[in-house]
């Protein structure tokens, strides 16, 4: 079984070919170690990171962007989204603040990626 894949690790987007030969995965076209790791994972358990937002109460912005700090299994993305959608933070929130630890047991935290201060009272 042979497959073409595009590496998503960095913007170079190297095109690789991978095939399973005698039960072992062989990869051609990778330009770096991270690409090889990506290809190997992609065939067995594709992993992704995602970014989304959480609601912030009393913040100078209504939402704080968050992202996963480690890739998670692709098939868990929508489960993870469900967890994140239920979160509600209170301002102020800070970059790096952990919103959900080891979300869905996938080995990744959900972390805030923007500082959101407290809303100033309106004059």
């Amino acid at each position, binding site marked *: 079984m042979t497959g073409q894949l595009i590496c998503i690790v960095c913007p170079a987007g190297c095109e690789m070919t991978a095939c399973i030969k005698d039960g072992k995965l062989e990869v051609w076209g990778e330009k770096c170690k991270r690409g090889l790791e990506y290809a190997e994972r992609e065939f067995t358990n594709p992993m992704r990171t995602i970014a989304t*937002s*959480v*609601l912030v*109460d009393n913040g100078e*912005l*209504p*939402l704080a962007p968050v992202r996963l700090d480690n890739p998670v299994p692709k098939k868990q993305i929508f489960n993870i989204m469900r967890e994140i*959608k239920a979160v509600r933070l209170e301002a102020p929130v800070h970059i790096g603040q952990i919103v959900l630890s080891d979300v869905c047991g996938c080995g990744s935290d959900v972390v805030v990626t923007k500082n959101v201060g407290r*809303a100033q009272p*309106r004059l």
Partner: protein
Amino acid sequence: MCLRKVYDAIIIGGGVVGSSVARELARYHIKVCVLEKEADVCCGNSSRNTGVLHAGFLYKTGSLQAKFAVEGNAAFEQISKELDVPYKRTGKLTIGFTEGERERLLKLKSQGDRNGVPNLSIIGRDEIKQVDPNVEAEFALYSPTSGIMCPYMYTIALAENAKLNGVDYYFENEVCSVKKEKDGAFSVSTAKGRLYSRWIINSAGLGAPTVAAMLGSAGYAYKPVKGEYILLDKRAIEQIRVPVYPAPDEKGVTDLHATPTIDGNVLMGPTCNDVVQSCDLDTTADSLDYIVKKGASIFKGMKTEWIIRSFSGIMPRFVERGTSGYLDFLIEHHPDNPNVVNLLGMDSPALTGAYPIGKYVADIVAAQEKLAKNNSFDPCRKGIKKFSEQDVETRCEMIEQNPDYGEIVCRCEYVTKAEIVEALNNPLGVTSVNGIKYRTRATMGRCQGGYCETRIASIIQESKGLDRKDIRLDNSRSYMFTGEVRESCGCSTKTPSL
């Protein structure tokens, strides 16, 4: 909410003609309302045209078109001051190259002279260059009284002045049926309720034949003709100073042309194509391609990277019952139906002629009813002061009085938050994004709202305490958003400024 009201006169259609009638009737003691099917007053043909103040030479001598064009043109200086609307008497060149065109231009000049259009002349190459150095032509009919105006600002101003003088406006109230009651009054049904009135003025634009039929005058028809336009970046105006029209062809049709707008853009168009339905306002690939290709050969400013947007209008070309010959304006006031005035065929020059048309209709009603003058009528209305048009000192004063003038919301057109807020609080109660657009020019620039639209939506939400789901582009079916990304449970109406 079920509307149930009684008036002395109902005007069906709040465009430039209907709002002019409203304003003229407001000069008398009479209870008037306007029923408008759209969410604002300039959604139909009133905004979908070239914005030209015609001199009046294009129209048959003795016609109402000629009469009202000439009168409206002469009166516009006064009107623009009263209503605080921009206009410029640029003059216009109708150019030609061939003998045939020269003949037709001479005929137009004679017609104009007979119509009472002042100072028309046929000029040659050199004089043309003095009027507009960009224009190449052998000769031209020069009409110094022609000009340009902003058709939607004018319509809004008429409506606001009418409203401030006591006329009620009801939007999204399309008339479904009209019944004559036993006492001779009319009961008018819309989707939102029923109103009663002694008089009905039908200024429903493209819908006028349908309304006329409801009022007992069936059989009128329009031959709808679609005109499409492309709006060009303000940089194109370096290539044009005055409206330049080609001489009409043997059939009297004028091909597409470039016209500077009062705001400093350039309009290319209109095209001219028959359509089946008068509600089909879609722009079409063929016409847009035609404007781009033909436009590039006749106007140096026609560069594709200068295209901002396109739009169309349907001209209500009025057709004689049983034939297909185009007719004059028809202002029908029949003794069999003495309390009805039908305004049909309000194609060009109804924009130029809106004021005298309004007066003509109001005079009919006033004479028949022997109306007393309304001494508290104030013809003046103030528009929104444009930050972008002021000198530095004035701008500083404005910001000091109101810091909202220091927040540029639309960076393409330099529209400030103060103007957006003022536009939102307009006398007619319009709160759509397009309503703000027409009153301030925000979103009309080259980025088409790419920068300001998010801000305008926030200002609308803040100012009017609306939910995101309730913000509209124009009428109630044009929702912009489907809700929040994360439900905040409507806990507060806070919208932090970004």
